């Protein structure tokens, strides 16, 4: 996201990064907390305190930076949490839901800050979240000592959030005025206010006609309430007070303490007019003051019996269910109760005690890290050029050799450390899945238990960023499509709760991340049918192996029409997943057992800077082939070579027939051998395809520090970069995928080599 308008300064940037981290930390804990609470009926003190502290920190910093909306939202979250902290309330799914949405709101506000330098412009959304929180708090309190807060509050970092309300004063409102109001914000406020007042008016008019129909009341109340909130944010003190008074009256009518009689409605309508007038004044660059404000407020106060504390925005007894989340209450709450069994079975205390590993950290600019790693890479090459310098060939230098061995070792160690600097544990991305599964399973009415293994496994930061979205998509697929509904599962003899396991581990030079589910597995027939339907399969696909069929799901254009849910709002298809993984030179493998489950495996190279390669020679040039792509290498038996009439060479290897690619032709160099049987064939593969590369000689394995070809050259088909060999020679790194594509294309275009 680029900063538009006001450039954001260092403090804000730091704040944003920190807050995001904190929210990332809070979310999984919230869910853990709820599960623990439903399991044991208690609230884990440590976790609640931790979450409370996190919100408090965010609030404090936000206050310091003048980000009122964030302060307001987090403050109310704090208050709610405090109820659980002090044991006054039990935590349930509803609360977690609202708190999760609060987190979402804060993230959205942070985005806003990032683009505009401030958190204004989202008052209505934030206001709604705040209102939910406040109402929730009020419910819990059950009309006891009023500890709720109004929608407007002061930026006070010292607030110790124990729920003690501070009476609104004019000073507080004036502080809010210090917010820099942009013209856009004002415009938005005016537009919204117009709508809101319109609604209030309509509702009041309807009420006048039929005083016993109170549905419209709800609407009026809500709109007026939001309007009041906005006024507060915009620093319109007069409007706020007046609308507050009107709100009280409406509230009294709603509760039945006041009749919606002939006298009251006109007065309220008059108030709406006054408010409208003030808004009009504001849109004409006026101050938005209300004349005779005290008198008007008194009028309203007289109307509504027993006015409560001025800032009180919420009635203690809410009779009719309002917010969406309340509806959840009516459903037989599946999540917490059912979780109990599975929780007891599969989850253990460790999840609760998932320790915050206390490390000494320091923030480092990524560009500096990149520079560091580049230099280390150069060092490795330079060192190699010294120690393997052709000038030294044949010389017997014992001391020199000893010294170079030592140097060698140090440089390699340095390289390892430098690379590890950019590594971060996958826990970061994995834990995001907790919230995801929670939301998805609720939405899809399925029961899913998520297990995370190997969270400590480290991967390169760039890699982590690139696989985060694919992982989200794959997990989403699992919940949406793979895991069956509880009924289906029971009917199939499976436990009601589906299992999804995310695991990360190191395997050779790669990191393996697997997503395993015990759902319905992939249906070969269905996939094949759709593949044919979408024109991705030549013929009827009879000869296709299982792997090839399952591979179809990654083809662009395969995307199922059922692709609905967009939890994160991004339309990511399986083909994008594959593309992203291949971007970081990884592979995706699918294995499945119909009815039993599916395993998706992402294999990703540990680092993008070095790779294991096989050095081969063609003529006087040396090329590096990624070790992972090599299937085998063979000496050619002339009898197994076939030549098509177009001149393309094919070779039979066991049961397969593979195209042959002459590297010397490709690179236009003179080879040692022209006859296939004199040289060697290196069979490389990419996914299910393979090709045999004809080389003169295989020189051996070596670790190659990958260097890009100059930007001037751009990208070259069949080459993914180069490396510098010990003797200073450049060795191009071959891209097997690209070569295979070329071979296929050659075959089709019938061009002779």
């Amino acid at each position, binding site marked *: 996201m680029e900063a538009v308008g006001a450039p954001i300064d260092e403090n804000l940037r730091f704040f944003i990064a920190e807050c995001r981290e904190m929210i990332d930390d809070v979310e999984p804990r919230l869910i853990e907390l709820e599960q623990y609470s439903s399991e044991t009926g208690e609230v884990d003190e440590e976790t609640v305190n931790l979450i409370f502290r996190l919100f408090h920190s965010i609030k404090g910093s936000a206050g310091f930076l003048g980000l009122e909306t964030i302060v307001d939202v987090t403050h109310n979250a704090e208050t709610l949490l405090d109820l659980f902290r002090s044991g006054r309330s039990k935590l349930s799914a509803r609360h977690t839901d609202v708190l999760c949405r609060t987190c979402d709101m804060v993230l959205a506000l942070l985005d806003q800050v990032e683009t505009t330098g401030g958190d204004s412009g989202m008052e209505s959304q934030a206001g709604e979240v705040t209102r939910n929180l406040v109402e929730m708090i009020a419910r819990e309190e059950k009309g006891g000592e009023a500890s709720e807060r109004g929608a407007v509050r002061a930026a006070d970092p010292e607030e110790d959030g124990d729920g003690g309300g501070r009476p609104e004063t004019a000073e507080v409102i004036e502080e809010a005025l210090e917010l820099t109001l942009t013209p856009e914000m004002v415009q938005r406020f005016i537009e919204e206010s117009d709508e809101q007042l319109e609604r209030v008016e309509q509702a009041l008019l309807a009420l006048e006609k039929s005083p016993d129909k109170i549905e419209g009341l709800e609407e009026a109340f809500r709109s007026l309430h939001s309007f009041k909130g906005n006024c507060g944010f915009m620093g319109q003190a007069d409007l706020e007070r007046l609308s507050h008074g009107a709100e009280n009256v409406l509230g009294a009518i709603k509760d039945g303490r006041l009749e919606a009689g002939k006298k009251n409605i006109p007065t309220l309508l008059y108030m709406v007019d006054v408010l409208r007038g003030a808004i009009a004044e504001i849109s004409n660059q006026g101050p938005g003051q209300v004349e005779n404000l005290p008198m008007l407020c008194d009028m309203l106060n007289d109307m509504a019996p027993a006015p409560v504390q001025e800032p009180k925005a919420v009635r203690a007894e809410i009779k009719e269910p309002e917010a969406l989340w309340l509806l959840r209450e009516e459903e037989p709450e599946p999540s917490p109760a059912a979780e109990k069994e599975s929780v007891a079975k599969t989850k253990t205390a460790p999840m609760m005690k998932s320790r915050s590993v206390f490390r000494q950290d320091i923030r480092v600019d990524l560009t500096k890290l990149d520079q560091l790693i580049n230099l280390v890479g150069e060092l490795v090459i330079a060192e190699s050029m010294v120690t393997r310098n052709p000038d030294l060939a044949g010389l017997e230098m014992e001391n020199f050799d000893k010294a170079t061995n030592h140097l060698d070792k140090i440089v390699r160690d340095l390289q390892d450390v430098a690379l590890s600097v950019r590594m971060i544990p996958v826990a970061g991305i994995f834990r995001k899945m907790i919230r995801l599964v929670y939301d998805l399973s609720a939405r899809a009415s399925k029961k899913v238990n998520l297990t995370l293994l190997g969270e400590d496994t480290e991967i390169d930061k760039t890699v982590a960023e690139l696989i985060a979205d694919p992982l989200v998509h794959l997990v989403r697929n699992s919940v949406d499509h793979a895991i069956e509904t509880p009924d289906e599962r029971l009917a199939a003899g499976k436990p009601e709760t589906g299992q999804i396991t995310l695991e990360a581990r190191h395997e050779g030079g790669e990191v393996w991340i697997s997503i395993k589910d015990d759902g319905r597995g992939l249906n070969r027939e269905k996939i094949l049918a759709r593949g044919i339907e979408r024109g991705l399969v030549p013929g009827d696909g009879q000869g296709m192996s299982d792997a090839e069929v399952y591979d179809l799901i990654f083809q662009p254009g395969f995307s199922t029409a059922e692709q609905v849910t967009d939890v994160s709002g991004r339309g990511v298809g399986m083909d994008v997943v594959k593309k992203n993984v291949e971007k970081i030179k990884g592979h995706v493998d699918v294995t499945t057992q119909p009815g039993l489950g599916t395993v998706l495996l992402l294999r990703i190279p540990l680092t993008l800077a070095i790779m294991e390669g096989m050095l081969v020679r063609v003529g006087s040039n040396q090329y590096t082939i990624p070790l992972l792509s090599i299937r085998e290498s063979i000496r050619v038996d002339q009898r197994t070579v076939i030549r098509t009439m177009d001149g393309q060479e094919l070779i039979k290897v066991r049961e397969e027939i593979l195209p042959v690619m002459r590297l010397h032709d490709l690179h236009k160099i003179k080879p040692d051998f022209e006859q296939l049987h004199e040289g060697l064939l290196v069979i490389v593969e990419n996914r299910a395809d393979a090709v045999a590369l004809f080389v003169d000689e295989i020189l051996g394995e070596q670790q190659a520090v990958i260097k890009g070809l*100059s*930007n001037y050259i751009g990208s*070259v*088909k*069949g080459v993914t970069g*180069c490396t*510098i060999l010990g003797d200073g020679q*450049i060795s191009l790194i071959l891209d097997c995928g690209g070569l295979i594509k070329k071979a296929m294309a050659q075959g089709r275009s019938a061009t002779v080599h």
Partner: protein
Amino acid sequence: MSKDKEILDDTLYDEDDEDTQRDKYLTFQLGDEQYGIEIRHVTEVVGLQKITSVPDMPEFVKSVINLRGQVIPVMDVRTRFRMPAREYDDRTCVVVVNIQDTAIGLVVDEVEEVLDVPENQIEPPPRISQRAGSRFIQGLGKVGETVKILLDVNKLLFTEELEIVGAAAE
């Protein structure tokens, strides 16, 4: 022409001794003529070493060399000028230029010397022919009795023809 130079001066990376580098040209031999390029673009001159060819590249930029650990592309200037190719020998050099943050080596027959060519000694390029090579001429410098063809390094490197590079390599 001088306006372009001014723009170049403004946008190119600063050099403390830019003043002392102005009007200085490194001259080299290509075929029968001598050419020159502004010294401030030149970072070094190296002898020819092993070049590695890269597939699917246009004829004039088809190789790379290893310059102290850096992989830089190499342009055969003869090919760029559509001149007949010549066997590389021990006088063939690579003039490394750095422009717009890109380092490129220019293969030339022989490097001569660094000459001072003040602006008033430079004639504008021939307008008549807009043919291949002529596009790259920045001006014609008079040095004593001889005339050196001064090249515009930017054009040499980045002219339209290079868009074919982008398309071919994809």
